[in-house]
Every structure is written in structure tokens, then in C-alpha cells.
């Protein structure tokens, strides 16, 4: 068997035998995913809370209104007492509260004008404004129902039809109308949905893989510290084979961690089709290879574990910042040009093309060529720069 492969297998075996290292490295992607889920999970659509003070306790229409609000999937209703709501508004704990005034139901029943009141701090906040428009929608629905009921009652007046019968019939009609509206609204998704998971997953994956640079950067230093580097180089193992072995081990490790992250994203967020999942794995593999090759360049230059860690962390942070992983960089700007110096940019673009834009590997010629180029250049450069010790081979 090739000596590089034996080196890689030994490295992987050591990794698998260190229970703490193994647990941490496998739990890390799960923890990152949990954070991602906590931040974005289930929030691909708006979900808010309306805080309501109901001063019309037991009123027919206030009860109906609250029931209708409760039926909205993307809105929770939290009832507050008047002093509680005022206090929270005063302290800016809440930015908007809906007040249902006293006699709200009585006024509507007698055909008088009844008003709902929004009390808000400033503009009520972004969520408050959305909640207010949802509440208005419900209020308008009830308003229209009451108008229909009034019109029907007026039209049938004097025909000796019992009022109760009119109410039941109109209510049935309205219920059916709400269930099967004449004017329906249908959503059609064009391309993939622009939800936060789609937007941020590529960045999280690439950043995560890039952190593996630190591990690779330490790989040679650790051999040096153990004394095994010098010993290995007195055997038939060449420096090139040693580097390729380290490279393979670190690519495997980075890839397995990314695989866990992507599988979880697949299962929980249903981001992928089977094909796009496989394509994403291919990108993850090539990017892990590019990151490992760059890690080896650092490994070939540094002499201590501290140097390896700090150089790798600095490099990782610069790559992440330059690539616009978590913020948009406008096309044509200076930052856009600079971002091309970061391998993250290419990996991000590749993942976004697959995950967010529904593209395929065929659309990723430039990105894959750049990442593959980094692998080759990184491996060659690390070999050229490496010296077992000053004056050594």
C-alpha cells in the first residue's frame, strides 16, 4: 500500500482512538447545526405575536375577533391586562399593543362605529407593523361579514323570515366563503426560496471547513514535537509522501464533519434534492482539499504549535471576512474584487449556486477550477517551503 495512505490511516486511527477528540469533532457540526436551527429553524415564514388587551371581556365580537386571530398560523395571541400592557409599553418591553375597547361588541351589534386601537412606541417595530397588518386583515374580514349580514337583513326585512334563520344562513355562507374563497391566493416559488438557511448555510459550511486549516497547520508541528518527523524522514517515506498522507487524513476529517452538517441540513431543512446533495458533497470535498492544502503551506512554514494555531486562525478570519460570508458584497465594488482573493468566495459561490439557485456542477467551472488549482499549488508550495530543520532536506 502506498506510504501516504498508511500515514493517512495512522492519522485517522489516532483520531478515532482519541474519544474526546472524536466526540468533540463529531459533536461540533451537530452543535453548529443546532445553533443554526435555533436561529433559523421554522422561521422561513414570518411568525409573530400580537399582544392584546381585551377590555370587552365576554363580548360576542371581541371573542370572535380573538378566535379569528388565533386561527392565523403565523400569529400567536398573548392577552395582557391593561396595567401590564401600559407598563410594558412604557418600559419599551413591547413596541405595540392592540386594545379592544369596552362595549366593542355592543357597538357593533347596534351598528355603531367600533374601533380597535394600536398603541405603539415609534413605528411599532418591523414585527409590530407586520402584526398590525395581519390584525387589520382579520378586522376587515369581520367588517365585511357584518356588512353582508346587515345587507341581507335589510334586503329580507318584511318577508317574515325569522332573524335567527337569517343569521344562521349568512353565517354558513360566510364560513364556506372563508373555507373556499372565491378569490384565492396561491404562492408559486420561483427558483429556490430565499430563506435564511439557504442564504447562510453555504457560509457556515465554508467557514466550518476553513477552520480545519488550523488542524492541518498543526499536523507537521505535532510530528516535529513528538520527534517522529525526523525519524520518519530517515525511513523510506519521502517528504512528499508524508505531506500527501497528512493531506488525505485532514481532507477525510474535514469532509466527514461537513457531511454531518449537510446531512442534518438535508434531513431537517429539506434543502436538497438527492442530486444537489451529492453535488454539494463534491464541492465540500474539493473545498476541504483546498483548505487542507493551504493548511499544509502554513504547516511547512511554522515551527511551533502556537505559531501554527495563530497563523491559521488569522488566515481563516481574513478569508471569511474577505469572502463576504455573512454579508452581501456589491458586484463591481472594490471589496468584490478583493473578495476574489479568498477561497471562501469560490466555495460560497459554488454552494449558493447549488443550494440557493438550483444550479448544478456544470455551472461551476470557474469555482471548481480555482479550488482544484489551490489544492495543487498548495501541495507543491508546501513541499517547496518545507525544511525538516534549517539546513535540512
Amino acid at each position, binding site marked *: 500500500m502506498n506510504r501516504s495512505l498508511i500515514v493517512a490511516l495512522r492519522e485517522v486511527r489516532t483520531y478515532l482512538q482519541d474519544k474526546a477528540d472524536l466526540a468533540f469533532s463529531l459533536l461540533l457540526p451537530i452543535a453548529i447545526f443546532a445553533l443554526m436551527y435555533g436561529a433559523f429553524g421554522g422561521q422561513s415564514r414570518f411568525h409573530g405575536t400580537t399582544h392584546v388587551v381585551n377590555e370587552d371581556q365576554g363580548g360576542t365580537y371581541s371573542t370572535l375577533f380573538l378566535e379569528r386571530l388565533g386561527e392565523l398560523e403565523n400569529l400567536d395571541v398573548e392577552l395582557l391586562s391593561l396595567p401590564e400592557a401600559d407598563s410594558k409599553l412604557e418600559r419599551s418591553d413591547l413596541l405595540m399593543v392592540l386594545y379592544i375597547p369596552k362595549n366593542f361588541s355592543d357597538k357593533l351589534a347596534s351598528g355603531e362605529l367600533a374601533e380597535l386601537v394600536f398603541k405603539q412606541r415609534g413605528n411599532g417595530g418591523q414585527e409590530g407593523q407586520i402584526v398590525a397588518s395581519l390584525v387589520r386583515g382579520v378586522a376587515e374580514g369581520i367588517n365585511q361579514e357584518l356588512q353582508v349580514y346587515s345587507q341581507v337583513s335589510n334586503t329580507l326585512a318584511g318577508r317574515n323570515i325569522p332573524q335567527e334563520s337569517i343569521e344562521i344562513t349568512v353565517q354558513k355562507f360566510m364560513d364556506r366563503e372563508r373555507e373556499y374563497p372565491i378569490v384565492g391566493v396561491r404562492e408559486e416559488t420561483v427558483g429556490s426560496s430565499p430563506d435564511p438557511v439557504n442564504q447562510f448555510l453555504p457560509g457556515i459550511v465554508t467557514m466550518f471547513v476553513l477552520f480545519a486549516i488550523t488542524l492541518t497547520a498543526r499536523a507537521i508541528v505535532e510530528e516535529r514535537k513528538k520527534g*517522529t518527523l525526523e525519524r*520518519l524522514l530517515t525511513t*523510506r517515506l519521502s517528504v512528499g509522501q508524508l505531506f500527501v498522507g497528512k493531506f488525505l487524513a485532514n481532507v477525510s476529517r474535514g469532509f466527514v464533519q461537513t457531511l454531518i452538517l449537510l446531512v442534518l441540513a438535508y434531513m431537517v431543512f429539506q434543502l436538497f434534492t438527492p442530486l444537489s446533495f451529492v453535488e454539494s458533497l463534491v464541492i465540500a470535498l474539493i473545498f476541504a482539499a483546498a483548505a487542507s492544502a493551504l493548511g499544509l503551506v502554513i504547516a511547512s512554514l511554522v515551527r511551533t504549535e502556537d505559531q501554527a494555531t495563530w497563523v491559521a486562525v488569522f488566515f481563516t478570519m481574513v478569508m471569511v471576512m474577505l469572502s463576504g460570508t455573512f454579508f452581501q458584497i456589491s458586484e463591481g465594488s472594490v471589496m468584490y474584487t478583493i473578495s476574489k482573493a479568498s477561497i471562501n468566495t469560490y466555495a460560497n459561490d459554488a454552494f449558493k449556486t447549488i443550494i440557493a439557485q438550483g444550479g448544478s456542477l456544470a455551472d461551476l467551472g470557474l469555482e471548481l477550477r480555482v479550488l482544484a488549482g489551490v489544492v495543487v499549488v498548495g501541495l507543491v508550495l508546501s513541499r517547496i517551503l518545507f525544511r525538516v530543520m534549517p539546513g535540512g532536506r
Partner: protein
Amino acid sequence: MPEAFLIAQNLHKSFNEHKAVNGVSFTINKGEIFGLLGPNGAGKTTTIRMLSTVLEPDRGDVTIGGYSIRHNAEAVRRLIGVCPQELALYADLPALDNLVFFGRMAGLSGKEAHAQAMAHLELMGLVERAKGKVSKFSGGMKRRVNLAIALMGHPQLLFLDEPTVGIDPQSRNNIYETIESLRDKGMTILYTTHYMEEADRLCDRVAIMDGGQLIVLDTPLELKRRIGPPEQVTLEDVFLRLTGRSLRD
């Protein structure tokens, strides 16, 4: 006429302005134990690093088994085994796995490496602990594993750089016996140590280095004879006479 196995000719190595090795030449015969002695900083380790192809000499050359370290280092590496002064092994792996791994690096097949590893662990009295992690071993056991690794691939020339540092008399004795049995089987050994009685017991010939230069080379007996009756003089007396008593660290 003894057959020369290692020929070092006019070796030079400098680090910046410091001349670590300055014109060292010697020959090691096939099947002999050659002691390379010297105070700290004498240039022994740099010399061994050049002989074992880790460092390239600034000037001069070495041939081992007829191969030049400059022109055919890979062939040289097939002939040598190195037991460094510091423990150079994977403490988180079992002893057997360490030996098998380095055996594979020495060009053995998996089966050969396993067979040799078991044989060397037996030789070192460690076969019972073959599957134990090295990190759990005592200092003496680790030293024996360190030496056993160097034997993987049956090298023709073994470099032993202070293999008995910091171990108990039992382990040291085991290592002495192992080295003597290797010599009896025809292995050539370059041995460095700071224990003069060790060199006196094991080495056929001894070279003493100081300040990057080889200052004397002879059998222990002849070296002792240079300063007095051999039965009344120790090799340490010779060493101190030649290298002085001033501290070097």
C-alpha cells in the same frame, strides 16, 4: 582486513556563523559498534543527522554501503535505522502498532511488519504489552519500544543516540544485551552516549568529538593506554583529559 561500511569524508556543517561540524572524517567497519562520544555541543547530533540523511552537509560526503548520502539518499535510507535520543513514537498508539507503522515506512509489507514487530517486542521483553498503549508504559519500556522501532526493516546500520538515558538498570541491561546480540548477528552500530562505562563495555572503537572536530579515534583499550595503565584508567579519564573539565551547557 575489515570491510568499511560507512565512510565519512571531510564533513562540514554550519548554522549561520556557527560551525557545528568542521572537517570530520572517519570510517565504520561492517559489524562493529562504533562509539561517537563528546560533550554537549560537540557536534555529535549534527553528524548523526548528516549520516542519517536528515541534514545535507555543506561540504564533504558520506557513503553508506557504497551509496552516497548526497547522490543516493533514498538507497542509504534503505540501509539505516535510527533510534533518536528523544522518544520518537506515537504514545497514543499501542506498541505493536508503532512498530508495524514504522515497519511499513521501512518498506515492509503488512504481514512482514507484523511478524518483525512481534519478534522485536519479544527481543525487548515487551511481547506481553504489545497491545498496550505506549503512553501507559514506564520510561524503560518506552526506551525499549524506541529501540525496537529502529530495528524494523532489519537495517544494516543502526544509529543509537543515547538509547539508555533515564532508565533503570534492568532496562539498560536489556538494551546492552540486545545491542550485543545485534552486533553478533553482523549489524553495524553507531552509538553515542554520555555514559563512558557503557561505551567501554559495548564499543569496538570510539571517536571523541569536541568543537565540531574529531579529536581522537581508537579502541577503548588503546585510548586508555594513552594516559596510563589500562586497568587503572577509565574511559571517562581519557574523555575528561581530552575535552577538559569546563562546563559546556
